């Protein structure tokens, strides 16, 4: 029997598992270190200094975070703009990941800013020539767009079911009307936000690459190129679907659900060509600028470059072109994981490994505090993801009542 898929809340699952408890401990650990950061300044718990002003909070939390949340806009382009209905089931999980991912990018920026309480300044003080300004503005707007795109999911869950505790019950009606109003107006205007989301993503994904171009000769030539923005955009598009596959397989495993292999392998089929284009640009750029010579010296940079390219691009590229991989859950997971690691490595390499300031006495390595905070943030993100999918209709399950016919899921339709 072929059931249709319907986004469902996983409320009958257990929240506390051993894994969840570890995540909670990691989160608490991060918060302790953050207290130091806010009470004694950045210097008290990071290894940042005047030579290395940016560390893993920028390279991992922000730069990698933005890249790994690219599943949001690539899936929106595929599902909404190219309008392939079969990908419906991945849209909501991808949207949720992007929404949470970008929220944590913003948090990462917030804690890294020396004057975090001025985080709103870019909204009113513009510098059009600064790529960081562009990244900042695009991310602010994009987070808003993502939250708006998520509203219908909340509406679907709560319309007709708003039941606040006794003393607040007089609010039930107004909230319900508000939700209905939002749902109705958004269902007509959602396309505006969806397209805006894709445009904003292309803009800031590429500008994130422009960021390091200005560092000029302080950047190792293996990474320093005027086409960095293009490379960043291509790799972000390339990692979008692998990231969806990666988390979808983890989620289905963690909640004991059946993996959506037919959709996932279809997604996987598209990854190979994208990674191929990325690799072609990367190698073409190396030829044009003649940077192959730097691979003959053995140093941290050249070794990291080779690992990034081999493990993160070439091996997964080959794997995504193989039928066997596309049809095997384990191998597909492996290939996707490699791509995810590859893009993360690329961001870390671009922002940290390639960056060699002229007067550094020793090279930067993150402090225990920096690592704790980064790990803790990821833990909190996963926990929130878990809470949301258990309480809102995000992950699609086969619905025994819906047998074919109804082609679209009914937005806000549980009347």
């Amino acid at each position, binding site marked *: 029997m072929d059931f249709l898929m319907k986004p469902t809340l996983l409320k009958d699952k257990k929240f506390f598992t051993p894994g969840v408890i570890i995540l909670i401990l990691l989160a608490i650990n991060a918060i302790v270190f953050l207290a130091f950061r*806010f009470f*004694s*300044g*950045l*210097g008290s718990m*990071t290894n*940042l*200094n*005047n*030579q290395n*002003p940016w560390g893993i909070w920028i390279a991992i939390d922000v730069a990698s975070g933005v890249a790994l949340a690219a599943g949001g806009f690539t899936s929106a*382009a595929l599902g909404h*703009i*190219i*309008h392939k209905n079969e990908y419906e089931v991945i849209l909501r999980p991808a949207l949720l990941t992007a929404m949470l991912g970008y929220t944590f990018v913003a948090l990462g*920026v917030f804690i*890294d*800013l*020396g*004057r*975090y309480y*001025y*985080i709103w*300044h*870019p909204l009113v*003080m*513009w*510098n*059009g*020539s*600064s*790529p*960081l*300004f*562009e990244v*900042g503005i695009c991310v602010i707007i994009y987070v808003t767009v993502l939250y708006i795109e998520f509203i219908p999911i909340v509406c679907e869950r709560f319309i007709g079911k708003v039941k606040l505790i006794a003393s607040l019950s007089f609010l039930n009606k107004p909230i319900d009307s508000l939700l209905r109003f939002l749902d109705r107006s958004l269902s007509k205007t959602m*396309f505006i936000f*969806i*397209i*805006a989301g*894709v*445009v904003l993503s*292309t*803009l800031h994904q590429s*500008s994130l690459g*422009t*960021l*390091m*171009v*200005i*560092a*000029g*000769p*302080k950047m190792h030539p293996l990474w320093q190129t*005027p*086409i960095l*923005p*293009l490379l960043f955009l291509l790799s972000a598009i390339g990692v979008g679907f692998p990231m969806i596959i990666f988390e979808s397989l983890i989620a289905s495993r963690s909640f004991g659900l059946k993996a959506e292999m037919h959709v996932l392998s279809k997604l996987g089929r598209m990854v190979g060509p994208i990674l191929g284009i990325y690799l072609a640009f990367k190698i073409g750029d190396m030829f044009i600028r003649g940077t192959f010579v730097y691979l003959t010296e053995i140093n941290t940079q050249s070794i990291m470059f080779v690992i990034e390219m081999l493990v993160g691009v070439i091996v997964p590229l080959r794997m995504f072109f193989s039928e066997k991989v596309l049809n095997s859950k384990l191998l597909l997971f492996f290939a996707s994981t490699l791509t995810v690691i590859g893009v993360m490595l690329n961001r870390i390499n671009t922002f940290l490994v390639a960056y060699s300031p*002229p*007067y550094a006495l020793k090279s930067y390595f993150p402090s225990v505090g920096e690592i704790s905070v980064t790990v803790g943030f990821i833990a909190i993100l996963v926990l929130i993801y878990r809470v949301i999918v258990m309480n809102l209709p995000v992950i699609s399950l086969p619905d025994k009542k819906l047998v074919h016919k109804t082609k679209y899921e009914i937005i806000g339709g549980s009347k």
Partner: protein
Amino acid sequence: MDRRNFLKAAAIACTAAIPAKDLKANEKFKIDEDRVGVLVDTTICIGCRNCEWACKKAHNLSTEPLEKYSNREVFENKRRPNNKALTVVNQFYNPKNSQLPIDVKVQCMHCDEPACVSACIVHAITKHKEGPVTWDSTMCIGCRYCMVACPFQIPAFEYDKALQPKIMKCDFCIDRQKEGKLPACVEICPTETLTFGKRKDLIEIARDRIKRKPNRYSNHILGEHEVGGTSWLYLAGQDFSKLDFPKLVSDPAPGVTESIQHGIFAYFIPPIALYALLGGIMWINKNKSGEE
């Protein structure tokens, strides 16, 4: 393909094949012909470090008494300007005469096309048309991108402050200059190492010195062309890379980034066109799937 076309192509590709506007379209900030600068002649400097003291005094930074500055032990390590000292003097071995070490004062170069100004997310750093590059505490958000961008690695950050940490760098004593005074370091210098004046005159002076004593000077005025020119200029008796100056090209540091930025954002045309394009695709595909 030359660089400009290549960039154009990249920018176009980034925004899905939309004509990039003329990259030169961005108006250049007009800088004053008569802008001031300082010529640092490292062959004269005696390493007395009085300038370090004067600079701290002028900026209300805590400092030891002037007498302590004659202590030569500090030269054992190379130092950098930081949040406690906006300028420092380093000492280098002199291959021509090992008895006479070379002393080099370091501070912000006050670039004519400063990377820090171009990079700053909120425009908290300003290039004044008179020459100085200054930082505004009321705007800065502490992102430290200026530090990533500066080719001379000058801006320093107060990492030990939890509230209102500042970006610290030489401000060319702009307040003293407004009062008609010399920069503190120039004023106190007991030798003629530091010459304050109009940048164009300083270049003449420097050329003249090189011409008169070709043996004393290497034929290179650092800052005349580096990263598009700087307000502070240096003369030396040997290669500047031996004196810990970074090797730099004459293209302004922000040039490439700004071309990319202005290419992608030429009057917002590329993003809007991309929006329209995606809207079109969405509309067509929606109709198609509706017909099925």
